[in-house]
């Protein structure tokens, strides 16, 4: 069976959930081989094997962390040239997409980004993507050489398929361009106790109607009661009420959870583009004409400072 390369997204060997989703999707296409760049192979092996990685290619070179993107491009390209995979899967994010594009250009391959599903087709992998602010659904395939595909988080539920992976260290000849852009400092995003926005099954977001940074505590209370992540609209982020890393929208994070609860968000097109593929959508807003209500499975026209505390109280009552 053909090898499918999966680029591992990890911090010192702690494998992030989107990688487990990629391994699950890769098994539909062939035999998954994980590509782990940077330190942490020992810590990562168990998780990668549990989700079906047959092989783990390890590149533990200082260049990977010292310079931006290009060392990873050198590594992935050279591993692809050595192994001749049937496809390469990467996580969709700024880093993943840039690595994917440059690898595809070097290999003479085609590229598809932001897939929300990948299945095996007669001419190689078939992808599904959203287009035009998630109003359209597109299926596509790569027509040249090794398909390179970036996949959005939550594209598949990770399914265990235990293996005993073979770990192979790979030596990479880094080109002079690899040392082009130096990483001066790296601050991993705070994980905290809540699930990460892109990976969460439930997202509770606040917008302009939350009316102040201190009031986001109420949004957090609802998120914690439901076991979800906290999001924010562009307006709330621009006002400085919540960090940009939590912005949901076309230019922020695009989420597709089982439940999206929008509090005090009117639903501008850019925000809708980032959340309207959510399975169930709930909205609380004072303005009955807010466009968010067009998407809502359940909408409440009312004051969020009255509705949300009652919701939290009722959740706690129902759970006790």
């Amino acid at each position, binding site marked *: 069976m053909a090898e499918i390369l999966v680029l591992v*997204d990890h911090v010192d060997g702690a494998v992030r959930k989107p990688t487990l989703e990629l391994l699950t999707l890769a098994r539909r296409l062939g035999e998954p081989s994980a590509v782990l760049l940077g330190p942490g192979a020992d810590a990562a092996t168990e998780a990668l094997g549990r989700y079906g990685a047959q092989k783990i290619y390890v590149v533990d070179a200082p260049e990977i962390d010292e310079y*931006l*993107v290009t060392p990873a491009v050198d590594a992935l390209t050279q591993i692809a040239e050595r192994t001749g995979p049937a496809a390469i899967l990467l996580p969709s*994010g*700024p*880093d*993943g*997409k*840039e690595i994917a*594009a*440059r690898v595809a*250009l*070097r290999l003479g*391959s*085609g590229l598809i*980004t932001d897939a929300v599903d990948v299945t095996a087709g007669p001419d190689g992998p078939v992808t599904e993507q*959203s287009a*035009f*602010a*998630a109003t*359209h*659904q*597109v*299926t*596509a395939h*790569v*027509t040249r050489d090794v398909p390179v595909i970036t996949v959005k988080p939550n594209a598949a539920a990770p399914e265990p398929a235990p293996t005993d992976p073979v770990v192979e260290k790979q030596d990479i000849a880094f080109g002079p*361009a690899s040392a*082009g*852009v*130096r990483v*001066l*400092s*790296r*601050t*991993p*995003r705070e994980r905290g106790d809540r699930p990460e926005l892109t990976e969460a099954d439930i997202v509770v977001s606040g917008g302009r109607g939350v009316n102040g940074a201190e009031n986001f505590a109420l949004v957090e209370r609802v998120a914690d009661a*439901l076991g979800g992540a906290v999001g924010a609209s562009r307006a709330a982020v621009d006002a400085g009420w919540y960090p*940009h890393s939590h912005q949901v929208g*076309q*230019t922020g994070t695009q989420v597709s959870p*089982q439940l999206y609860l929008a509090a005090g968000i009117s639903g501008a097109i850019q925000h809708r583009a980032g959340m309207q593929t959510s399975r*169930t*959508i*709930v909205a609380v807003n004072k303005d*009955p004409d807010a466009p968010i209500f067009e998407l*809502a*499975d*359940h*909408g*409440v026209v*009312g004051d969020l400072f*009255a*509705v949300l*505390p*009652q*919701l939290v*109280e*009722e959740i706690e009552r*129902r759970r006790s």
Partner: protein
Amino acid sequence: MKIIVCVKHVPDATADRTFTQDGTTDRASVDSLLSELDEYAVEQALRIAESDDDTEISYLTVGPDDAKDALRKALAMGGDSAIHVNDDSIGGSDAFGTSLVLARAIERHGFDLVLCGMASTDGTMGVVPALLAERLGVRAVTHLEELTVENGTVTGRREGDGATVRIQGNLPAVVSVTDRSGDARYPSFKGIMAAKKKPLETLALADLGIEAAQVGAAGARSAVDTATRRPPRTKGEIVVDEGSAGAGLAAFLTTRKFI
């Protein structure tokens, strides 16, 4: 310093956009304009020029006749000149074809700094800046929320996949900026009038030494099989809060098994 800003004329993101039969963006059904995300790149170029008198700014676009409008809009914000690559063979190009045309035009013009938006608002792939750097053989200092250009070095803050990083690279470079990099200015009346007189050069593929088969649908490395409109969401129940809507919401979430 020579700055080239890559801009794109795109269908209005707030309009109801759709696809043509062959799976490419339908440009005829809605108005097009300068991609909002490119305005941030224009703004950063203008700020750099304001602090350095020797800076010259050119705008570059690839597209049909009306793509000129995006160049005029950028010129109205400021800057010196524009280049329009217009050739029937380019229609249907993917990111590889587009980046090839851009790279050849950039090489022909000469540059110290290429500035781009983080993505176009129609294709939204966000990979053209990286492809340009790869093709031009220069550094890619991308996805910046904040940047400074000083003494031939670009330093900036980037929101990467799992971390915020501060990065630095020397010119020449391709730099892309996000919508957090700083609000774009509006063109003044004086700027709009001045833009009409600024030089705008039009190039065809032959001027760039590119064969028609390298771009357009012929040169594309992926193909769209189907493009369908998602059915509109069926509107759910909207209730007006009269004191018990919070409890009602909890009941709804219970029926959907979230509680």
